[in-house]
C-alpha cells in the first residue's frame, strides 16, 4: 500500500514537471517524431492507466525533457558568455610575394600554373577555449578576384586545434598545404588578379550548440610573382 502511494506521488511529480515544460515537450515531441518513434505519442494520449508502459513513457519523457532543457541552457549560456565577454584575439601574418610557376598538381596529368606561398603566422587563440569549446578549425585562405569577375576564396592551409595548450599558433616559413591554382586551369598570368588578400579564419565548434566563425588575422595586397621557371 505504502509503495503504491510512493509511486503515485512520483508520477504526479513527473506529470507536474511535464505540464510546466510544455515548450520543451513540444521540442521533445519534435525529436521523437523525427526519429519516427511517433508511437510514444500514442501512449501519451491513450494511457491514462498507470500501466508499465505509462511509467516507461513518463520516465523517458521526463528524461528527454530535462536533457533538452539542459542542452538549450548550455547553448544559451555559452552564447551569452560570448556576447558579454567577446574573446580578444590577436594575430599576425607576414608573407613573401607569392611565386607562380608551371607545376603539376596532384592527380592532374598536365602542368599548369600554380602559386606557392611562404608565410609566417602567429596568433593567440586561447581566449576562444571556454568550457564549451570542442575544437577550433583554423584555415588560411586566399581571397582575390580575377579578370573574368570570379571572386575566389581558397583554403591553402588548415589545422585543427583541440587543446588550449595548442591554441598559440606559431608557424614560421610554412608552405601551402593545398594546391593553389586558378579556376579552370587557365593560370594566374592570363588575367588573374595581380595580388590577393590572405586571412586566418577560425571555426569554433562547441560541445553543444551553434557553430561560430571568425577571423584572427589578415594581410592584404600580397602580389603574385609570375615566373617562367622555378
Amino acid at each position, binding site marked *: 500500500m505504502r509503495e503504491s502511494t510512493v509511486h503515485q506521488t512520483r508520477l504526479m511529480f513527473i506529470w507536474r514537471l511535464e505540464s510546466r515544460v510544455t515548450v520543451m515537450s513540444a521540442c521533445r*515531441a*519534435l*525529436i521523437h*517524431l*523525427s*526519429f*519516427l*518513434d*511517433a*508511437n*510514444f*505519442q*500514442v*501512449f501519451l*494520449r*491513450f*494511457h*491514462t*492507466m498507470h*500501466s508499465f*508502459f505509462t511509467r516507461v513513457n513518463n520516465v523517458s519523457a521526463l528524461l528527454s525533457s530535462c536533457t533538452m532543457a539542459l*542542452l538549450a541552457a548550455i*547553448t544559451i549560456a555559452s552564447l551569452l558568455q560570448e556576447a558579454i565577454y567577446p574573446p580578444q584575439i590577436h594575430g599576425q601574418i607576414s608573407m613573401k610575394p607569392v611565386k607562380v610557376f608551371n607545376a603539376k598538381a*596532384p*592527380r592532374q596529368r598536365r602542368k599548369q600554373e600554380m602559386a606557392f606561398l611562404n608565410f609566417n603566422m602567429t596568433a593567440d587563440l586561447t581566449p576562444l577555449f571556454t568550457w564549451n569549446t*570542442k*575544437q577550433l*578549425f583554423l*584555415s588560411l*585562405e586566399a581571397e582575390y*578576384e580575377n579578370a*573574368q*569577375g*570570379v*571572386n*575566389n*576564396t*581558397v*583554403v591553402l592551409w588548415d589545422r*585543427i586545434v*583541440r587543446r588550449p595548450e595548442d591554441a598559440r599558433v606559431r608557424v614560421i616559413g610554412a608552405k601551402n598545404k*593545398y594546391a593553389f591554382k586558378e*579556376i*579552370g*586551369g*587557365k593560370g594566374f598570368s592570363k588575367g588573374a588578379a595581380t595580388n590577393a588578400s590572405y586571412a586566418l*579564419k577560425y*571555426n569554433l*565548434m562547441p*560541445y*553543444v*550548440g*551553434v*557553430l561560430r*566563425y571568425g577571423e584572427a588575422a589578415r594581410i592584404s595586397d600580397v602580389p603574385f610573382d609570375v615566373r617562367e621557371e622555378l
Partner: protein
Amino acid sequence: MFTEELKAFRRLGFRHVLLQVLNFASVIASGLMIWKGMGLITNTESPIVVVLSGSMEPAFYRGDLLFLTNPPNERYHTGDITVYKIPGADIPIVHRVMETHDVSSPVKISGLDLKVPGEQLILTKGDNNHIDDIDLYQGLDWLERKHIVGKVRGFLPYVGYVTIAMNDFPQLKYALLGLLGLLALIQRE
C-alpha cells in the same frame, strides 16, 4: 499467449479500433507535417541528418545529429560545413568547404556550361581526409548550389545512434514499430 489481448481486442469493438487507427494515422501525419514544415522553414529537404562516417573526425563522429539550414540568398563560405548530394549517389555527404568561386559576370570555364552571376563553384574536403573530394563528385569538377542540401548550424552528439541501429538492423525497426502499433491498438482507454 495472445489470448488475453485478443479478447481485449474483441471487447473494444469495431468503432474503437477505427478510432485508434485514425489517431495513429493523425500522429504519423502530424510528424510528417512537422518534418516537412521544418524543411520549408530551413529550405532543406532534410533539416536533421545523422553522421554515418568518420571523414569529419574529430569534429563529427558516427552517430552525431546535425541541424541544417539552407537560406536561399546566402552564399557558402570557406570553412562552412555543408551536406551535399551528388546526382546518382545514394547517400548525402557532410564535408567542409575549401574553395568557393563566385561568378559576378557571365564566364565560360572549360568543362562547364556558361556560368551566370550568382552562381558559385565549390570544392569540399573532409577534415579527416588528406585530399579534396573531387573523386567523390562522380565526374563533376565542382559542386554547385543545386547539389548542396544544407549548411551545418548546430549538432548533438550520439543521439543519432538510434537511427543508425535501426538502419543497420531493419528487423529491429519493424519489430519495434509492429509492437508499438499492436499495443496502441489493444490498449484500452
